[in-house]
């Protein structure tokens, strides 16, 4: 794998009981690159992202963030040791995650959702946290919703708050796990526009998505997954206009139908 990879997965396997969700996946994402993962439901897109964040621990394989192993401490001449909670938390703070179902904390306002990590993880002084929090709420066009509770926001607004919450940590990588799949069709656009804007700012991103036209527009690299494996990798033009494998062709036929 390339030395300049910002985040990479090396031969990652994940089994849940006797179900194999990932069967030897390797993916390397260069600094500033935007990778979109497409593929049918159950193909392992989400599991791969969750493994990259160590929310699901890989059964086998290695995740590296900016060269540093996620979840394990590497030691000279000794086998790697599992990270302690605080060590894992420290590296997780550098990986942003946006979930399909938002998972905003309902007992806090939108603004509190965004600044919690700034205060409690990054330890910023109050004034600085408030300033940054406003900045990121502005970035997702929610200046007027700072004090709203998640309950009173639309799905699209909730997901934008969730993006601001992850982004405010100023992570090295942003992972998006089907960020628009739970949204009403008319709310998808506002979320995709925000993600597109962030992508244009040069943040490294991995996005699992069912939005093909979005993937075509925003991705540097598109990865097609099926049955726990990466079947095909290429440029958007290559993947969408000249699919090599039969499985990808069938998938594209189905989603465009």
């Amino acid at each position: 794998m390339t030395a300049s990879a910002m985040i990479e997965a090396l031969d990652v396997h994940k089994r849940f009981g006797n179900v194999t969700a990932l069967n030897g996946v390797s993916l390397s994402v260069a600094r500033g690159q935007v990778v979109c993962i497409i593929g049918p439901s159950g193909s392992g897109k989400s599991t791969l992202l969750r493994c990259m964040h160590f929310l699901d621990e890989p059964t086998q394989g290695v995740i590296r963030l900016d060269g540093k192993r996620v979840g394990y401490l590497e030691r000279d001449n000794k086998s790697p040791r599992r990270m302690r909670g605080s060590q894992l938390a420290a590296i997780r703070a550098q990986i942003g995650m946006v979930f399909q179902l938002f998972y905003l904390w309902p007992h806090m306002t939108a603004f509190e959702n965004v600044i919690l990590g700034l205060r409690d993880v990054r330890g910023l002084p109050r004034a600085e946290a408030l300033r940054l929090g406003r900045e990121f709420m502005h970035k997702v066009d929610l200046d007027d919703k700072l004090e709203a509770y998640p309950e009173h926001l639309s799905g699209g607004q909730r997901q934008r708050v969730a993006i601001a919450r992850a982004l405010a940590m100023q992570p090295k990588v942003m992972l998006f796990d089907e960020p628009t799949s739970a949204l009403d069709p008319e709310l998808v656009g506002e979320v995709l526009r925000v993600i597109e804007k962030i992508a244009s700012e040069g943040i490294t991103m991995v996005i699992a998505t069912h939005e093909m036209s979005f993937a075509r527009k925003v991705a540097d690299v598109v990865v097609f997954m099926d049955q726990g494996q990466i079947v095909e990798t290429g440029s958007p033009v290559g993947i969408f206009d000249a699919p090599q494998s039969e499985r990808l062709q069938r998938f594209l036929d189905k989603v465009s139908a």
Partner: protein
Amino acid sequence: MDLDFSIVWNYVPVLLKAAGVTIILTVLSQSIGTVAGLFLALGRVSRFKVLRVAVWMYVWIFRGTPVLLHLFFIYYAAPLFGVTLEAFPAAVIAFSLSSAAYNCEIIRSGLQAVHRGQVEAAQAIGLTYPKIIRRIVLPQAMRIVIPPYMSNFITATKNSSLASVITVQELMLTAQLIYNSTYRAIEILTAAGVIYLILTTCLTGIQLYLEHRTAWELRGLSAGKRRRLELNAPGKRMGDQA
């Protein structure tokens, strides 16, 4: 049968003092039982099996045997270990042990009712376990826990009368002592009943207050109204109290 409730007035100070004992006994043992119950609940959902099993055993024993038995047991067993316990501390210990077992189960159900995604979102921004519990899980669990917790508190208030059997001079024993010498059982028991009712009504009030405090969507509504009212003063609107 003639009733003479005027006799109650002579004993109001004594009854109130005894009610004070009931309150102190209940609040003290519930406080200890709440803190202990919280830690037991965390042990119950811990990833360490030894801890889970140990807590399960504790709850199994203390929820599965009568509080009355605990009371006698601690009161009579203490001297065997070379300690002489007064009735009151013995009662506090017995009620705390039992309260811890019940509160453990109540709090555990609250912790487990918080959606896994809530914790994952907190892990995702790099919060550590103690902070996830304190900032994310407990505030949400609290809301779920308040009704059963307060029910248990009310039950404990009434059950504190059991301490009378080991001579703690709480409200029930005091009432008995009074009517044993005055032969005015109905009048004194009625008075004691009224006092219990006042205590439990206060607890119901506290429950309503706590439920209101943790209803964040209501808080959200009032914030919305506030925002509309303050639209003309945008400088000091947002997040200053966040």
